[in-house]
């Protein structure tokens, strides 16, 4: 096996070999490698196929900007992870990775044919081709695109890993542990500021840490040596926290940031077990220093995407940091000085290389150094083509014309096995823009820079456009002193020597003799979009960068265009003849790099996903086979199936028992608000539509609450416990909202009222017993209580005891039956329930759930707010005009009840519906019409509640119908998929219209 690891470095431990699998084959790397560096050490450049044309692609970079080396990690159904960049993945024993985009395999694949039909795949190809017919999408286009595009596979089973969240507060957060970040962290921490430094790599120091050019020195030491000392020093600072393998995922307003800390991704399988995989840090920082550095730009020329073509600085890092050479005969193609550092490094390690430089000449220290070492430099030349299928083997260069618009002279063919490109540097302004910062364009070297620094955020170092070391250190120190309002003198006498770049020449789309239409000048490697696509989009009339981006899909891949956005903008500006700075940039959105769902969710998975509220009788319901329904966060018994009953059978049995003898319902979930104060009656007068001042102590009253717009908001029974003390009940789902609303009015509109509200929903449990035998059961439970209609009539309240425990008993009914609700402190709820069941045995007391409750109340035509209403129903629409006081001057929503729209007579109004076939049960939500023959059919309303009533032995329904009030007896039609159902409009009350049962 070839070995491209050519020398030792302090970051790679060659004595510790690590075995890993890539595309099913076993290889060896060393401790300290990334997957990418280990592959390159094995001579592997080819790592995948391109998205659209399926061209062979190789590793391009050494960091987060990597567009090609995208892997699927692992193959287990629950643990596989897509979209992992090999350049960021630390190697570990037993790692299994596969190339993501290479169906059926990386060396040969069907999609490669796209390369030859590529003239047929222009910009907007997906929009233009896969448009019609619609039915082809699901069955033909999408599977085809997915299969051949290889977007990676999601795990199909729940993620077994543990994720964690942590909230932290700091005075200063420093993002990025390169040289400017380290200087900042030291200055801040030494001045008594609680500081957090995060860096996404496992070793601090950024690109300076492997810098070893003699032309660049700090205090007479190599910059890397100097920086290592600084890192040693900051590690001793007590109020500095350093988090490695931690990347900022999102930067929100008010300096709220999310950071992902990788805890086990670099560990071998057996060491990952039972450990937290990743931790999401939720950071609040008083001040944030962004020191995220910059990334090298590629150059856009014909066939710039072959395996073996990398960013120049990445070749340097693979060599000086990982000890790996990317080739044996390397050409560097550049428009700036930084490739010369790579060249000199390669030369020192004995690797043959030469430089092709766009610039007419250049004269910095680095260039003099390269010249003195005898490195061949082609100034004023441009690469016009490259050759080699699975890896580059040669290229052609030509001389540039004076204006740089075209090439002149003869082609020179040069052989090579690797090409490094450097198109300058792009400051990483992602964090700045994510936080809402704007950008400025610097024409000099064509970079977008943070426009403004605010009092709580600043960018320093190369992400702020300071590229040479002297600039970086001096400016960082000055800015940080001002920004943090400190006077740190640590770097006052630091002596910096560095090479200064004097010459610049940038051409976004490099000239070529071949017409653009016949070239492949890639801009976005991951999404396979070319310079030609951008030009075509412009020709077709697209102008906005956001539109061009979407039409060509440039910058839309998982790398969010880290390498491609600038070139796309540059080419648009050049083509449209406008200044690049005027175009604006696309928006950078979080996350900066892909983030696992598990990290975002943290511990809130499985049973911790949502809060569950259970009543104190819950255990009994479980033991007695209840099926549960979620009502808000509550678990409510839905029905209690017996001996293999289905829901329908259970509900029929339960509702029959409740009417024939007795039923019991757990009503604990109803919202309960304790209302006290000298103005409590006045307060109720203002929030309910009916009058409350005259309600006698010990009596209960049903009330409806409106929104200020006149629409029904909630309902419930309120009991007057004493002169200034009421207990209000609300719907189960509406409890929290009602309390919020009442508090809002009390605090903001009527602060003069002496009223106190307390939510007591969880404090009391409620057993509701109904049916003709309920009084007998109550008598067994409360033998001393006079249950006569005279002493304890309907809509009244008593206090009595069970075994010395106080109970509040309300005689109120939601079923139309004689009915009692017993309230007791929640800790006794389960005992109370069991005593009721025991006492009711001889009367066949039957527990019933929400479904039966809904049926029973529908028989009586009682509404359920939220089921029969939807925020557009007034009391009058519900045929409940009786509940609206005519005498009261004002209450919430009163004025809205006679707005022109609310008094319309053709509003949708609540009615009853009876099916012509009494066995036919309507579907809730079904539309109602009066005519099915016309071309345009008016929808008159819809069914809101529908049941088969065992007590009436027929189907009943409630519905809202336009002008329904006037339609009693009228025939209507409910058109269903396979039939039309004939119904007749009826009264809303189906059973016991004269309320005989209430006093049975």
């Amino acid at each position, binding site marked *: 096996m070839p070995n491209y690891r050519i020398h030792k470095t302090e970051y790679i431990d060659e004595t510790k070999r690590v075995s890993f699998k890539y595309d099913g084959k076993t290889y060896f790397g060393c401790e300290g490698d990334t997957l990418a560096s280990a592959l390159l050490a094995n001579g592997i450049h080819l790592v995948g196929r391109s998205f659209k044309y399926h061209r062979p692609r190789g590793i391009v970079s050494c960091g987060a900007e990597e567009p090609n080396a995208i892997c699927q990690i692992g193959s287990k159904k629950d643990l596989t992870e897509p979209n992992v960049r090999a350049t960021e993945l630390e190697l570990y024993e037993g790692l299994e990775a596969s190339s993501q985009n290479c169906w059926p395999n990386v060396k040969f694949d069907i999609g490669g044919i796209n390369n030859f039909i590529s003239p047929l795949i222009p910009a907007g190809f997906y929009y233009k081709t896969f448009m019609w017919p619609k039915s082809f999408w699901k069955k033909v286009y999408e599977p085809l695109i997915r299969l051949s595009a290889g977007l990676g596979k999601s795990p199909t089973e729940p993620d077994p890993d543990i994720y964690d969240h942590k909230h932290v507060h700091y005075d200063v957060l420093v993002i990025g542990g390169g040289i400017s970040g380290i200087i900042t962290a030291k200055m801040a921490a030494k001045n008594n500021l609680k500081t957090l430094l995060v860096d996404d790599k496992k070793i601090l120091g950024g690109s300076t840490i492997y810098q070893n050019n003699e032309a660049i020195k700090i205090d007479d030491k190599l910059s890397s040596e100097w920086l290592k000392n600084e890192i040693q020093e900051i590690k001793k600072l007590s109020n500095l926290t350093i988090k490695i393998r931690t990347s900022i995922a999102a930067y*929100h*307003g*008010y300096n*709220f940031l999310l950071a992902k800390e990788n805890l086990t991704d670099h560990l071998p399988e057996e060491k990952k077990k039972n450990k937290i995989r990743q931790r999401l840090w939720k950071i*609040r920082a008083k001040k944030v220093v962004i020191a995220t550095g910059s990334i090298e730009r590629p150059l856009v020329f014909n066939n710039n995407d072959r395996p073996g073509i990398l960013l120049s600085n990445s070749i340097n890092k693979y060599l000086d940091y990982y000890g790996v050479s990317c080739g044996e005969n390397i050409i560097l193609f550049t428009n700036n000085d930084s490739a010369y550092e790579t060249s000199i490094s390669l030369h020192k390690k004995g690797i043959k290389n030469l430089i092709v430089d766009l610039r007419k000449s250049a004269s910095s220290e680095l260039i003099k150094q390269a010249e003195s070492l005898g490195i061949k430099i082609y100034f004023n030349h441009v690469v016009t083509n490259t050759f080699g299928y699975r890896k580059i083997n040669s290229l052609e260069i030509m001389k540039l014309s004076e204006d740089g618009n075209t090439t002149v002279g003869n082609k020179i063919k040069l052989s090579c096995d690797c090409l490094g490109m450097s198109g300058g540097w792009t400051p990483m302004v992602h964090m700045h823009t994510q936080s*809402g910062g704007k950008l400025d364009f610097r024409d000099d070297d064509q970079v977008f820079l943070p426009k403004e620094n605010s009092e709580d955020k600043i960018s320093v170092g190369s992400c702020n456009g300071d590229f040479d070391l002297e600039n970086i250190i001096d400016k960082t120190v000055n800015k940080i002193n001002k920004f943090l309002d400190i006077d740190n003198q640590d770097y006052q006498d630091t002596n910096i020597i560095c090479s200064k770049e004097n010459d610049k020449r940038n051409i976004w789309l490099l000239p070529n003799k071949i017409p653009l239409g016949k070239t492949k000048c890639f801009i976005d490697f991951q999404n396979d979009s070319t310079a030609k696509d951008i030009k075509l989009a412009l020709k077709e009339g697209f102008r906005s960068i956001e539109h061009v981006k979407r039409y060509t899909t440039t910058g839309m891949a998982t790398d969010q265009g880290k390498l491609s956005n600038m070139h796309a903008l540059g080419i648009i500006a050049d083509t449209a003849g406008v200044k690049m700075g005027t175009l604006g940039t696309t928006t950078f959105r979080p996350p900066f790099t892909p983030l696992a769902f598990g990290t975002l969710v943290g511990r809130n998975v499985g049973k911790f996903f949502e809060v569950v509220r259970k009543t104190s009788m819950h255990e009994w319901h479980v033991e007695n086979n209840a099926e549960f329904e979620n009502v808000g966060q509550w678990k409510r018994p839905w029905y209690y199936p017996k001996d293999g009953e289905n829901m329908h059978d259970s509900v029929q049995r339960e509702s029959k028992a409740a009417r024939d003898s007795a039923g019991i319902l757990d009503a604990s979930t109803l919202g309960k608000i304790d209302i006290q104060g000298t103005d409590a009656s006045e307060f109720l007068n203002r929030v309910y539509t009916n009058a409350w001042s005259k309600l006698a102590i010990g009596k209960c009253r049903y009330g409806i609450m409106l929104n*200020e*717009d006149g629409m029904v908001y909630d309902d419930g029974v309120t009991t007057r416990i004493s002169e200034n003390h009421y207990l209000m009940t609300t719907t189960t789902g509406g409890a929290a909202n009602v309390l*919020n609303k009442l*508090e*809002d009015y009390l*605090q*903001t*509109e009527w*602060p003069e009222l002496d009223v106190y509200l307390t939510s007591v929903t969880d404090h009391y449990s409620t057993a509701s017993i109904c049916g003709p035998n309920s009084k007998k059961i109550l008598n067994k439970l409360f033998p001393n209580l006079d249950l006569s209609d005279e002493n304890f009539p309907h809509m009244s309240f008593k206090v009595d005891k069970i075994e010395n425990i106080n109970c509040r008993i309300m005689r109120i009914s939601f079923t139309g039956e004689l009915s009692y609700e017993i309230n007791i402190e929640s800790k006794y709820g389960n005992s109370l329930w069991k005593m009721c069941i025991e006492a009711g045995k001889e009367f066949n007391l039957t527990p019933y759930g929400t479904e039966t409750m809904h049926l029973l109340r529908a028989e009586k035509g009682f509404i359920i707010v939220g089921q029969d209403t939807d925020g557009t129903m007034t009391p009058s629409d519900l045929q409940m005009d009786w509940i609206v006081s005519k005498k009261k*001057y*004002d209450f919430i929503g*009163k*004025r*809205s009840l006679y*707005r*022109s729209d609310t008094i319309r007579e053709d509003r949708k109004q609540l009615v009853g519906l009876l099916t012509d076939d009494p066995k036919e049960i309507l579907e809730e939500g079904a539309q109602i019409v009066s005519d099915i023959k016309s071309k345009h059919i008016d929808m008159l309303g819809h069914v809101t509640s529908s049941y088969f009533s065992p007590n009436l032995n027929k189907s009943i329904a409630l519905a809202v119908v336009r002008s329904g009030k006037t339609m009693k007896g009228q025939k209507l039609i409910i058109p269903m998929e396979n039939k039309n159902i004939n119904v007749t409009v009826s009264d809303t009350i189906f059973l016991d219209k004269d309320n005989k049962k209430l006093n049975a």
Partner: protein
Amino acid sequence: MFLINCPFCGERDQSEFSSGGEAHIVRPKQPTELSDDEWAEYLFMRKNIKGIQFERWNHAHGCRKWFNIVRDTSNDKILSVYKMGEKPPVNYK
């Protein structure tokens, strides 16, 4: 994610609060005297300003108190916080 300085509890994360829309819309004392249009003005019309806006907020997962803030909606900066019943700071009028 705002950091809101509750006048009763101090600085807390936005997730503890709920917003109640535009501030200083007084419920008419005599709604019956109002025309449909006047009532609709109170009921529906809100300014939704780009720039300096007065808003009601509730410390829902805290002290449950309502209060007002002055916020510049163009940059989300909260310029002032004051209790219900207090006059809005005149310098932001």
